[in-house]
Structure formats: C-alpha cells, structure tokens
C-alpha cells in the first residue's frame, strides 16, 4: 500500500470507519513500532504503541493530509515519541535515554502482507510440533485480549511451559523460513 493510499483512508477513519483504520494499522503499526526502538531499554514499547494507536483513532477527525504524505503515520511517530518521553520523565531516565541515538522515522517498515510469504509461513506453521503449534495458535486467536496465564490454563499448561513453547514456536518458524529462503530481521535466540 502506498503513502497516497494510506492518506486516502483518512476521511473514512475520521468518520469512524473501524475497517479503514484496520487497513491503515497493517502498515502504520510496524512503522511506529520501529520508531520506538531507541526507547526499548527504558519503556514498555508495546504499551506505548497501543496507547499511541488509540490516541490516533481519537484525533483522526482533526488530522488533515498534507503534501509530505502519510500524515497519520507521521503524527503517530510524534505521539509515540512524546508518550515515551513522558514515561521517561516520570521514571527520571530521560537523561540516559538522550545519550542514545535520536528518534528516527525511517518511513517504511515492511508490512508482511505478501501472499507468497503468507503461504510459506503457513507451511512452516504446519510443520510445528504439537505444543508449540497450539501455543502459537492460542496467542494469535486471543489477539492480545487475554493474559498468558489464562491462555496457558486453557491449554492445561503451566505458564512457564506455555512461554517456553511460544519461544520454541517462533524459533522453529524462523529456522523453517530461513531454509525456505525467507529472512526476517531478527535476533537468533532469546538471551
């Protein structure tokens, strides 16, 4: 999806069209997450990102597309930056964070919507061992609405077992994708 196409969604998002916002999120979320990288040592970037996306939805009726394009994403990067700074001020870590590299907005973080890539990942998911597969499926189906404790209980697992299996699933998928010639920009293993 091009920047122009994303800007074209703005009137519908401003009018309260959740489906239009969902279409925008598929591309906007990775970009804003990437802009929070410098704060990852000091703030919970997932919490800041979700707060940012909720605020974007709230302020969308007042956002106007401009000549630079991708207006909502650029505003999101700014909101995320400000929220992270607010958290740092509260925890008195601002000076340390300023020693790191400045916030960057590289524009594009690839959205993983390629049908061929999806097919390859589905094939890899199909090869997962039983327990990692069930954990991966369970977390995805919950869509972030339930804590891991509840998901583990539903699968009859201890929380620690659930978490280990999630890590195993991700690692298995990354290795499977690598064998298929697909590279994700990722660390090799949890520490």
């Amino acid at each position, binding site marked *: 999806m091009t920047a122009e196409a994303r800007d074209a969604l703005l009137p519908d998002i401003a009018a309260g069209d959740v489906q239009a916002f969902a279409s925008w999120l598929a591309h906007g979320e990775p970009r804003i997450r990437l802009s929070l990288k410098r704060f990852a040592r000091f703030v919970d970037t997932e*919490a800041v990102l*979700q707060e940012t996306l*909720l605020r974007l939805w709230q302020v969308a009726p007042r956002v106007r597309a401009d000549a630079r394009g991708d207006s909502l994403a650029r505003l999101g990067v700014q909101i995320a930056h400000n929220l992270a700074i607010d958290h740092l001020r509260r925890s008195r870590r601002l000076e340390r964070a300023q020693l790191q590299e400045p916030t960057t907005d590289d524009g594009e973080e690839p959205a993983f919507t390629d049908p061929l890539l999806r097919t390859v990942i589905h094939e890899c998911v199909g090869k997962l061992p039983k327990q990692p597969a069930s954990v991966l499926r369970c977390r995805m189906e919950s869509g972030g609405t339930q804590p891991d404790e509840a998901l583990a209980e539903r699968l009859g697992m201890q929380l620690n077992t659930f*978490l280990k299996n*999630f890590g195993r699933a991700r690692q298995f998928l990354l290795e499977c994708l690598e064998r298929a010639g697909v590279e994700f920009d990722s*660390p090799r293993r*949890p520490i």
Partner: protein
Amino acid sequence: MDDESLIEQLTSAHREHSPQGEIRFAPAFHDLSEAAREQAYELTRVARGLEAALDADGLSSTARAVLARITSRG
C-alpha cells in the same frame, strides 16, 4: 521465572488498563534488565511480523488488541 520466560511474556500484546483507561506496562518489563528489554523489543517485532503474515487481514495481535479496545468502547 527466568529471564527467557519474562522476555516471552513481554512479547505478548496483552496489557492491563488502569481504571482511567491508560495502558499499563507489562509486569515483566519491570523485572528485566535493560538489555533483556531490548531483546524483547526485537523478538516482539519478529512475532508481530509473523502474526501479520499469518492473518487474513494482515493484522498483528497489537492491531487486534487496539481494535478490540476501540470496538468495546462503542
């Protein structure tokens, strides 16, 4: 719980909300070193990419959690 499990917990998109509606940091975040938090950030990026690629609408669990929040507010 060891660091590896805490990191995996931090990669979840589930976050509690305060009574005022503010999204709270995951408890695991506070129990991890700065280096481990950075590791969790990178692993979360990978996980969200995989989730989006597997989702019919190209949405990650972060996007799903946000949309659930929006629609629950009516």
